[in-house]
């Protein structure tokens, strides 16, 4: 049976369908900005949803993963994939 589960993005509690990929779950929960680009610092979100463009990179429980290639489970703590402190 489809199941709603709790998870979080940058500490903000959200809910989504277990089994969805994180990119879709975040989009459905209204979170579109997944990271800032490293050089221009522009907001970015999922773009291709097929594991190609790498725009949806986030931290999932401390590991760097493609949101569109990672399945949502209850309790996941997701953080924005922005990389701090690098030069252009």
């Amino acid at each position, binding site marked *: 049976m489809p199941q709603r589960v709790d998870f979080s993005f940058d500490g903000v509690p959200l809910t989504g369908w277990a089994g969805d990929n994180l990119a879709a779950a975040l989009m459905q929960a209204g979170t579109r900005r997944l990271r800032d680009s*490293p050089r221009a610092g522009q907001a970015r979100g999922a773009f291709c949803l097929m594991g190609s463009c790498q725009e949806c990179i986030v931290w999932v429980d*401390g590991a*760097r993963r493609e949101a569109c290639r990672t399945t949502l489970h209850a309790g996941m703590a997701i953080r924005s994939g922005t*990389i701090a402190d690098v030069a252009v």
Partner: protein
Amino acid sequence: MTEAFDVAVVGAGVMGATTALHLARAGMRTALIDRGAICREASGVNAGTLTLHMTRAVLIPYAIRGRQLWLDAPDWLGMDAGARATPGLSVAFTPAERDMLEHRAAARRAEGAPIELVTPAQARAIEPGLNGDIIAAAHCALDGHVTAYLTGRAYRRALVAAGATLMEQHPVAGIDRAGGQFAIRVAGQPAVRARRLVLAGGVWLEAMLGWLGLHVPVKCLINQLVVTERMRPVMRSVLGIANGLLSLKQFENGTVLIGGGWQGIGDPARGGVEAIPDNLIGNVRLARAAIPALAEGRVARIWLGLESETADALPMIGPLPGIGDAYVIGCVHSGYTSGPFMGKLLADHILDREPELPLFDPARLVQPQRAATLEKTP
């Protein structure tokens, strides 16, 4: 027919480009010819490490001068190719590596490298990202790195400004001597004529010297490099291991480059075609052993570059025996570091200026057999 050049340099890597730049600046009509684009072989794809920890001991005086030239590139080359000075560390995880570390540090110190042994705690003060499991370390104040992929852009600007004629996408097929000149044959183009000739073909030098009837075996190494995507700052030194199988650094843009001379598959005819997965995993495990925080990064790309080596593993830089006005430059270990200096040395010799340090006479390497034929060209 167009007027002959004063000099034609064949091969636009760091060796050929530096030689050509100094000759052009000295007023010679200079042609720099490459079968591809400038600095897209070893000189554009190497690790850009300016380390003395991995340099052949006898080449250390050359490497120290080359390193300084890279750091001063904005002044003499006109563009910053990303050269940065950093501390350099070489570490040991096992007693055997510690012995090697001590022995090698002493040998390099004898040639003038300011390498000193430090405690693991001191090493971690220099490089906080370092694994606490190391048992010994050596530190060198003179280290650093260059962004190798910018080499061609920097040299191309300088060469154009110096008035050199750059002939990219000009594969040389052979060289004839006629009327005191060299006629450099280029597939699909008229021959390029020049009074002097410099061969600077990297791993392709064996075939090039064959054009002139000289047989000099050149070994080809297929070096693997691995780069991560950008990550938060996890290290600030150039880091190696006593056995020379790791070279590790993080650029300002956050990417981490992992090298150390692990081999892939390729040859001069095909280039570096294929990484060996087990060598990738080995190289990356070694890197993560040194800097544990690398575990949070992702490998973005693995590539292979071709490095040349002579029979005695020392460079060939100087006039070719028995052929007037022809010179060779190449097969320099850690040749990217010393390249800007080596090219200047040869240019000084050609311009009848006293070179600052001795050249490396190619005559010692010429084998008696008749040369490889033209068919062997790449």
